[in-house]
């Protein structure tokens, strides 16, 4: 049951209505049942895997909290890591590991046959595994008390709005909210509705529409010129951003309708003026997870310069691998790590130089130039993320660096590769303009800091109502148009 499906549009109102009608003590049962139903709608048997992870973490956390014996606590933690990560590695990475091993063996024995296990990739396994691990590690560190109520803990792991693609919530942010009796109030419903409109707009209008052009170019990279490859990669950045941010916003909106505030996963990453800033704003909960549970334990930035670079590269390589069992993702992670490392190495000399010359790095003009530079450098990295294999990366970069030209014919060829015509160009421009503006919708930017009165209150009320009407119409029209052309796609991050 994808978020952008008719089933979910029926499922969500039913669950939300039942949630508010039920007494507080029965709500967790409803939410747990709904979450399990939601997850089992992909594959009934996947419940066994999430069940093993949940029970393991629940038992281990209680065991850790009951003893002061350091060795025993560590043993429980290691056992949990082995079981949970073992499940993740087996189901997500085993074929990748086998394929890589076969590749190495073929260097010595060309006749080595492929070894592929027939395993399905459980939806959202990376998300709920990381969320569960954050709980056990927090309990081990004494940052959070072990949850005694199995029902609430199971709900924390399986909570349907964020189960299959995050945000990855720390126990301290989600569990207390699930345990608190939420009161029905109009602010939550309004904010939830805004998040939903924004999320569906991002996914059903912007991401899916950008995806049409991206898929067209990447289906025939060999005949695309440099401009087409660059444009497709830039559009892929918009696609993946809106796809995932859209999912996160639908998750935020769905939870908010039930009074629960999930963590924001994106904070305008495309306006970042540095790579460090970009990854601080992109998939925030995952990057915080890696920072807290990998980067800092490795020594973080409180060690020598080169050790810090090494730590950064390790974290980004793992982050890339987390995204998918493919060398393309590892390469993407390493490329991002190189940019972040270079930034950290040149930060001081650049600041000193700018101070000397009187250049303000945060002034609007300089910041705009930095934003453009980050965007232009990040777009080629997107090739690594989008390509199906290393060979495709080679083709894409070859075209990007060699197939340059200028003039009417060249631009026409690029447009043809993208499948762009006048109507679609207008549609794309409208989508991207909408993408820029929906930033304002649910983040509090649209909620003035002081209560409005008089005419402003009326404008606020009217425009909010109009946003719901036109947002719903825009999503419905575009979704149906894409559906008619079989261009509707699932959420890209589900595969992660």
């Amino acid at each position, binding site marked *: 049951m994808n978020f952008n499906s008719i089933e979910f549009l029926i499922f969500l109102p039913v669950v939300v209505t039942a949630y508010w009608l039920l007494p507080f003590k029965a709500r967790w049962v409803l939410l747990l049942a709904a979450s399990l139903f939601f997850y089992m709608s992909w594959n009934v048997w996947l419940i066994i895997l999430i069940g093993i992870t949940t029970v393991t973490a629940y038992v281990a956390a209680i065991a850790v909290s009951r003893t002061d014996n350091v060795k025993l606590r560590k043993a429980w933690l290691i056992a949990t890591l082995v079981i949970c990560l073992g499940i993740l590695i087996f189901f997500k990475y085993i074929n990748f590991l086998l394929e890589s091993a076969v590749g190495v063996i073929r260097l010595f024995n060309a006749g080595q046959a492929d070894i592929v296990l027939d395993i399905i990739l459980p939806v959202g396994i990376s998300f709920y595994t990381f969320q569960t691990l954050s709980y056990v590690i927090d309990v081990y560190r004494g940052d959070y008390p072990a949850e005694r109520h199995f029902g609430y803990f199971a709900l924390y792991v399986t909570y349907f709005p964020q189960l299959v693609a995050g945000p990855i919530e720390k126990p301290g942010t989600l569990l207390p909210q699930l345990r608190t009796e939420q009161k029905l109030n109009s602010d939550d419903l309004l904010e939830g509705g805004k998040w939903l409109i924004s999320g569906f*707009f991002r996914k059903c*209008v912007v991401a899916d529409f950008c995806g049409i052009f991206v898929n067209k170019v990447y289906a025939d990279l060999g005949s695309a010129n440099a401009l087409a490859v660059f444009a497709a990669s830039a559009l892929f950045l918009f696609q993946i951003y809106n796809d995932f941010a859209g999912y996160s916003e639908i998750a935020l909106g769905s939870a908010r309708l039930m009074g629960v505030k999930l963590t924001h996963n994106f904070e305008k990453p495309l306006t970042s003026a540095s790579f460090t800033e970009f990854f601080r704003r992109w998939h925030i909960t995952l990057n915080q997870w890696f920072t807290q549970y990998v980067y800092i334990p490795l020594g973080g930035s409180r060690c020598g310069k080169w050790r810090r670079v090494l730590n950064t590269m390790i974290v980004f390589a793992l982050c890339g691998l987390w995204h998918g069992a493919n060398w393309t993702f590892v390469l993407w992670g390493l490329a991002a790590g190189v940019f972040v490392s270079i930034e950290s190495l040149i930060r001081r000399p650049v600041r000193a130089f700018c101070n000397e010359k009187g250049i303000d790095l945060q002034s609007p003009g300089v910041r705009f130039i930095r934003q453009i530079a980050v965007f232009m450098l990040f777009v080629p990295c997107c090739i690594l993320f989008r390509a199906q294999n290393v060979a495709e990366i080679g083709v894409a970069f070859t075209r990007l660096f060699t197939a340059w030209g200028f003039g009417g014919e060249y631009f026409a060829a690029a447009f043809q590769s993208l499948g762009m*015509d*006048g*109507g*679609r160009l*207008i*549609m794309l421009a*409208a*989508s991207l*303009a*909408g993408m820029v*503006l*929906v930033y*304002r*919708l649910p983040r509090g*930017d*649209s909620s*003035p*800091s*002081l*209560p*409005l*009165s*008089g*005419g*402003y*209150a*009326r*404008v*606020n*009320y*009217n*425009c*909010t*109502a*109009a*946003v719901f*009407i*036109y*947002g719903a*119409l*825009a999503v419905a*029209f*575009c979704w*149906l*148009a894409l559906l*008619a052309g079989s261009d509707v796609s699932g959420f890209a991050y589900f595969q992660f």
Partner: protein
Amino acid sequence: MESVILSSPVLLCGYMAALALCVVGIVKKTGFWLTALSAIVFVGTSIYALLSGASLEEAGIAAIIFLCVNIAALPRGRGDK
């Protein structure tokens, strides 16, 4: 592909009227009735456009434009002092 909306004066007038009502409602800070009237005109025009052979994408673009206008008009600052 030729645009059905841009080539039909009736549809253009309908959308322009809806947009004008919407903008007047925002500028004059009127009650909800003007916004509602604008939305009704918009929906009516869109239905007529679809029945006249306009594509869903075209109707979608019109809805996105109206959405953008209304988001842009949402008050941001400290409000009415």
